[in-house]
């Protein structure tokens, strides 16, 4: 009787130890990553509200009714990394295939941040709107290794237009 009890306790402890070594760090990185991500998203939402007045559009039409005073290129770029939890999950999902939802948040973050920086640039130039908005996504560190690096780089650019005050 005591033998089986000891065996069960042993099994439970060994499973616990294995879980602590494998899942423990993952959970830690998940928490750490989530913390920074939430902070960044809060910041993004805050700034997006502030800069809602600057319109940006992928079309290249300029208001024909108003006179254009000045034009210029504006750009915004950002490089966002991902935490080890995301990379681990992504490499696991890669085995079975399917939607890698963990990488959607970094992409979203990077795109919105790049757009915000472009808008800030436009604001510095006292522009009224940004037309012909384009976005380019790439990766500096090629993800050919077994574990994806999950580094997203985005350049957002467009032409800032300032209309003459009538």
């Amino acid at each position: 009787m005591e033998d089986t009890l000891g065996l069960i306790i042993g099994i439970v402890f060994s499973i616990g130890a294995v879980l602590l070594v494998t899942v423990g760090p993952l959970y830690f990185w998940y928490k750490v990553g989530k913390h920074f991500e939430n902070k960044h998203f809060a910041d993004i939402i805050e700034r997006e509200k502030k800069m809602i007045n600057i319109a940006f559009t992928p079309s290249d039409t300029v208001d024909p009714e108003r006179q254009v005073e000045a034009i210029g290129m504006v750009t915004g770029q950002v490089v966002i990394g991902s935490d080890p939890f995301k990379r681990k999950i992504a490499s696991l999902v890669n085995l079975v295939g399917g939607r890698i939802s963990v990488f959607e948040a970094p992409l979203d973050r990077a795109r919105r941040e790049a757009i915000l920086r472009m808008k800030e640039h436009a604001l510095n130039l006292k522009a009224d709107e940004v037309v012909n908005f384009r976005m380019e996504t790439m990766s500096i560190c090629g993800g050919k290794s077994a574990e994806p690096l999950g580094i997203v780089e985005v350049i957002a650019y467009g032409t800032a237009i300032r209309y003459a005050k009538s």
Partner: protein
Amino acid sequence: METSQITGKLILTNIDRVPGKEIVEHYGLVAGSTIRAKHVGKDIMASIKNFFGGELTGYTELLNESRVEATERMIVQAKKRGANAVINIRFSTSSIAQGAAEIYVYGTAVKVE
């Protein structure tokens, strides 16, 4: 605007015309490209920062520098041909080596009035 002041009154735009002005002459395609890398320290810093899933400031800087340099090269070419505007500007990026960024900027040099 500031951009045109920096570049010596050269108008840069990614629309296919210059609003309010007329294109009088075409000078063809102008392009600038650059491949840049950061020193090892910045690479190490970036890989450490990548543990927290935040912005990799070193690489953002790298991207910024590459873009500025590529654009400058394009501007030099455009000025040599006597253009006062570059229209239809596009950015194209690719990765060649780890930790290096290649940016290719191209556009059409024109004269506007």
